[in-house]
């Protein structure tokens, strides 16, 4: 009889051990990993990281997350991928070992890292790179993105430019970003070959693109679309303007990167007229939500200085556009955890397809079974620089509804 009692007790212990441990974690912390190019693209890295941290700080400050009878606090762990896919893989391994419930990244190395994260049902959020193919709700069910897509940017650029009867030169640099963008912009213009004067790849690191710009000018181009990293956009502007060619230049979101203005700080007029496409920062309900977010962001981290001044001598700062996207993802993630009523990654991953939250700018953010894109293509707007400050254009249906965002330092 004693043997029977021992065995029953042993059996009960074995059965109890089969379940996933729900206790023992006295800190009750949920880790969100941020894997960004701290050394490589510091502005992008900083803004994404600060967006995640601000969301975590807000949520923790309001009591954290309640799942069942337990409370959780969010912890942010930062990794530097150096713009290297190999480093991103290492970072992802370390993040998974640290028990991360999600990885927020600029997009570096996602082609390699998503499968690692998938094994643990961990969500990967891309907060910057709009590359087509990075996100596929069917093939990569754990990859999400809150950032404008290259496809949407390219489509909107074509939609905006083709009716203007311009002969467009499609320039791209030879970085991965440039190559991906070249494919998307090529597809967007493929139905209107008569609108394309030339397609040309330029070297990403080259500061003098005079020969290439001369060739472009001889092609009869009356507008340039430059899909590349900020240095390439600055180099194209520099080469064109220095020969007195005031051709209109259009760019993807990298056109708004402070680096472009820093490079051309000695010739501010060369930036005038540069038009870029990006996700709109304010929603239809008005500027208040975004300005609230911006105010919070700046009171926590200070303004993101562009490093140049306008003609009135006022220092300029960059609105926290991409910080907004990573901030929003954390809120969608927490909504999914709440809906799943669980921190189990598989359940959280499934719930990410079922929730919508209001983003920092008042737009709805969410994913679904067919789309893991948190910024819809319709939300791509156009802004144009004048005196180093960008404002929404007036000749596009969406952009004309958007107010300008203040960019001069206050106080």
């Amino acid at each position: 009889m004693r043997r029977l009692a021992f065995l029953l007790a042993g059996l009960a212990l074995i059965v109890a051990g089969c379940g996933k441990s729900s206790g023992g974690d006295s800190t009750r912390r949920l880790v969100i990993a941020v894997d960004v190019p701290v050394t490589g693209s510091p502005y992008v890295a900083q803004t994404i990281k600060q967006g995640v941290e601000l969301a975590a700080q807000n949520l923790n400050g309001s009591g954290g997350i309640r799942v069942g009878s337990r409370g959780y606090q969010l912890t942010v762990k930062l990794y530097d991928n150096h713009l290297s896919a190999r480093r991103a893989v290492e970072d992802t391994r370390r993040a998974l070992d640290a028990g991360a419930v999600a990885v927020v990244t600029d997009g570096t190395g996602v082609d390699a890292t998503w499968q690692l994260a998938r094994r643990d049902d961990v969500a990967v959020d891309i907060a910057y790179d709009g590359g087509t193919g990075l996100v596929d709700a069917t093939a990569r069910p754990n990859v999400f993105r809150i950032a404008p897509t290259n496809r949407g940017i390219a489509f909107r650029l074509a939609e905006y430019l083709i009716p203007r009867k311009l002969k467009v030169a499609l320039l791209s640099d030879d970085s991965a970003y440039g190559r991906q963008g070249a494919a998307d912009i090529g597809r967007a213009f493929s139905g209107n070959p008569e609108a394309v004067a030339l397609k040309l790849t330029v070297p990403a690191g080259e500061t003098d693109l005079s020969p290439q710009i001369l060739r472009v000018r001889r092609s009869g181009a009356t507008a340039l679309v430059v899909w590349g990293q900020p240095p390439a956009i600055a180099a194209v502007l520099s080469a064109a303007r220095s020969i007195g060619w005031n051709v209109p230049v259009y760019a993807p979101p990298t056109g708004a990167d402070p680096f472009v203005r820093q490079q051309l700080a000695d010739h501010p007029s060369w930036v005038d007229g540069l038009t870029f496409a990006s996700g709109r920062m304010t929603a239809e309900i008005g500027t208040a939500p975004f300005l609230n977010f911006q105010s919070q962001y700046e009171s926590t981290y200070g303004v993101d200085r562009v490093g140049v001044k306008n003609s009135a001598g006022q220092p300029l700062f960059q609105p926290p556009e991409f910080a907004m996207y990573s901030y929003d993802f954390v809120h969608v993630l927490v909504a999914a955890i709440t809906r799943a009523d669980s921190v189990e990654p598989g359940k959280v991953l499934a719930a990410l397809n079922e929730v919508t939250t209001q983003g920092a700018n008042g737009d709805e953010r969410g994913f679904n079974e067919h789309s893991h894109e948190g910024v819809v293509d319709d939300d791509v707007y156009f802004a144009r620089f004048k005196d180093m400050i960008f404002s929404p254009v007036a000749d596009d249906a969406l952009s004309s509804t958007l107010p300008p965002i203040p960019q001069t330092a206050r106080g």
Partner: protein
Amino acid sequence: MSLRYSLGLAAAAAGLAAPASTAASIQQVLLPGPTPYPTQSPPLAVGGAPPPAALSFAVHARAAERVRAGVGPGGELVSLRVLHRLVLTGKGDYLIVVGAPVEDVRAGAGSDSQPGLRTGQILWSGFSSGSKVLAADAELRVREARELLPLRLRAIREGSRYSLTVTNATTIAEIAYGGEGLPQQLAELLDRTRRESLAGERLSPAYASVKGFVRARKDAPRIAAPLRVEGTLHFPSAPGSARGGTVHGKTVSFSAVLGDASPLSLRVDVSGGGGAPRLRVVARPTRLVRALTPPRAASWAVAVRRRAIPADLLLRRLIDARMQLVRSDQYQAFLSNPDPQGANRTVYVYETATAAPTAAPAPNTGSGGGNELVLTLAILGSVLVAGAALVLWAHS
């Protein structure tokens, strides 16, 4: 729902009547239409937690739907698809949630955007720059939607004889009120209702004057949406004869309005044909014609002037007709239109299904669902094996 709606209507009427009865002998009572609908669905209800759906006041939507029901040899429903086309006009943001027991959805032909899918929801989100077409081709779960289709089909084949019965399935019993109205006013309201019906317009709100107390009618009228039905049965060989239809070569065609003071079902009997036919039945919610035709006059106003028609009969005719038109309007939207004022048109097409019945989908439990089941079975299996071993050992 129907009872609640009807009681609400009666209560509203009584509420209007009660204070008035003390002050005057004539009450203004609200007639049925354009809303509320007598039942919650159609349109199909939202599943899951609805997100904060929003359609800017500057954006309007009209909907055109084609419901494609696949039926088996006996007329039973085996598959269901809806082509749901929303045409947005106006400039502004939209977030649209269309509730339905949706299994899968993709963009329909001509769509300017891609639909999203959540449990029980089709999603649209974006910006309309003036006009936009949102077309969804959705596969629905039969079990959850079949009761809301407007027709029931029943086919029987015995030897060389084939019979098909098509029944209007929109009938519900409603509680209506009665009273003594003013004949000339009721006649004018009947004429107005008739004009709106013949023009295919949604009813406009209307009040009737009733003398004395308003009372609930003892008979609960059975109300059905009038449906125009057209169908064909295509046989392997030419049938010998057909009753209720017309033979054209290998095809028997038939048409009828089910409702609108006409029978609510039709039956087609066919002899010969050499086997089971391929069936196609098209149904459209339609206007009322017969139920609102004035007796031997060009209008109800003229008819009432020519000869006395009891006021309670006129009120009864008016209320019943308006209830039928409300029901017809309800079936114009099988899936919902985000714009409550937007126009809706739905065509229901029943066709012989070529594919096997759609399997009921497994509930979405996330990627861990399968693993949990395996784990649970493994634990149970282990416990049973261990228990059996234990018993054997304990008795050794």
